[in-house]
């Protein structure tokens, strides 16, 4: 009666690649088909760029406005899907039991996160293409190699914000997560100089901005398009540091919440 079955035919694992790609596809479709999410994350950066870089008149001393804003609105645009996808997505799926069902399924947990990261990157690509098309139409001319470089940078750039989103999604309930993401997203973008050159800020605010997560990315993106110079090592270190911090807090919250949740 208490013999334990030691197994007749040990099943083989299904293809890991297919599982990972399947998660990514499902995650992308999920977000793509939710207009309340997809539309603002795509149209906000595109609309702002159109308005402030191309339509409204005005000259900036020292650099080309449309080129400068292509880089910084690019950073602004790639933050949204990562923050909302992880922040709101994880909070929701933790709450409605979807995450539990995933954990019970014979699926590698990593595939769950991979799916969301892939979605954020895919959306980042869409944002870059959208902004680039607007920039081209608006007369911006950058050497193709630099343009590719900007694209490559912006497609990996969501990573720290995925971690920040995960931290928010692990700490708050879904409705609160929406509010927190907005409270983080917009001020962080403004203060990091994503909407206007940081030089218009007072000196102390500029110094403060250097320590915000989007700032090193903005500086790097500006460097790529030839509108500034970045210290790539310091910037990368700051981003890695932020990512590690966010992930650390998320893991801690998860460990603590695992016991208290029910």
């Amino acid at each position, binding site marked *: 009666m208490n013999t*334990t079955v030691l197994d007749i035919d040990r099943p083989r694992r299904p293809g890991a690649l297919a*599982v990972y790609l399947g998660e990514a596809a499902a995650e992308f479709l999920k977000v793509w088909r939710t207009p309340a999410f997809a539309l603002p994350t795509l149209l906000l950066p595109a609309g702002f760029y159109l308005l402030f870089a191309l339509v409204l008149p005005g000259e900036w001393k020292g650099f080309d406005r449309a080129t400068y804003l292509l880089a910084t609105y690019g950073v602004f645009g790639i933050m949204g899907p990562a923050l909302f996808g992880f922040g709101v997505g994880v909070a929701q799926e933790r709450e409605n039991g979807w995450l539990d069902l995933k954990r019970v*399924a014979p699926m590698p947990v990593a595939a769950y996160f991979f799916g969301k990261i892939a979605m954020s990157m895919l959306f980042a690509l869409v944002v870059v293409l959208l902004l680039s098309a607007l920039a081209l139409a608006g007369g911006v001319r950058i050497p193709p190699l630099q343009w590719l470089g900007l694209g490559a940078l912006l497609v990996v750039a969501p990573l720290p914000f995925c971690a920040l989103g995960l931290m928010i999604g692990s700490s708050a309930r879904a409705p609160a997560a929406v509010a927190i993401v907005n409270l983080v997203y917009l001020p962080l973008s403004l203060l990091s100089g994503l909407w206007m050159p940081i030089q218009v800020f007072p000196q102390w605010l500029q110094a403060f901005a250097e320590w915000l997560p989007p700032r090193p990315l903005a500086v790097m993106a500006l460097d790529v398009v030839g509108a500034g110079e970045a210290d790539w090592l310091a910037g990368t270190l700051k981003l890695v540091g932020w990512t590690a911090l966010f992930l650390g807090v998320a893991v801690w919250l998860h460990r603590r919440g695992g016991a208290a949740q029910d």
Partner: protein
Amino acid sequence: MNVPVIAQLHAAGKRYGTVTALSQVDLAVHRGEVLALLGPNGAGKTTAIALLCGLRHADSGRSELFGMDPRERTARSRLGVMLQSTDLPDALTVAEQVRQFSGYYPRPRALDETLGLCGLTAQADRRYGQLSGGQKRRVQFALAVCGRPDLLIVDEPTTGLDVEARTAFWRVLRQLVDEGVGMLLTTHYLEEADALADRVVLLNGGRVIAEGTPDTIKQRAGCALVRCRTLLSAELLQTWPDVQRVRGVGRRLELATTAPERLVGALLAADAALTDLEVQRNSLDDAMLQLTREAA
């Protein structure tokens, strides 16, 4: 009984903060067997399931799935689970969700087979968010069975379903059992355990308080209560074979029985002046109370 055990809890205990959810629980599901885990809210049913499918880890004792730690993915590749309150992504279609989950398993059913089994063929291309409550529940069930599991764990599968949907669901469960699937099911309803289970484990306050076939459990608890005002004495009634237990003061008596129809006939025959007759199906709560009292 030489049927192998496919899932078990061994002296398992689990606490959440100061609340003891499970204490010293032994539980075994054998291959091809339907085990019903019965108990009121807060009895520890959901915690027991969480331990068996690797969602939580026991503080004491251990939990085994196919001879392995349930947190090992290989163990779970033969397990299908329908959790109690889960919502799937609204924006994905039924077929998309089932296909995605099928991909986690080594030998999944074909998509059409899963959809047919769960009565979802017509809804294949509809998004989850557009489905009715009953249909949503069926999609969650489809995700549990799409991998052709050897063990199916379903946590209160029919809560909130109407009678018709419930019987339809029982039919599918029985079909799977006929195919040799082992099943662990939790329920509030004695009736459900009766209809499906080979064996019942009664949980209360995180402990196993009774275990046996549905019939044994019902008999131990008495399946109905007959109340009346009668001249017959409690001592006499105690000796009747259909009476399991007599309670009451003076002429107002309460009889527990497994055969209420026969008992009522006999009562009326023996006491023509009997009044205030009342028959009440014993609810699970009554059975629980009764068995808890016995256990204490």
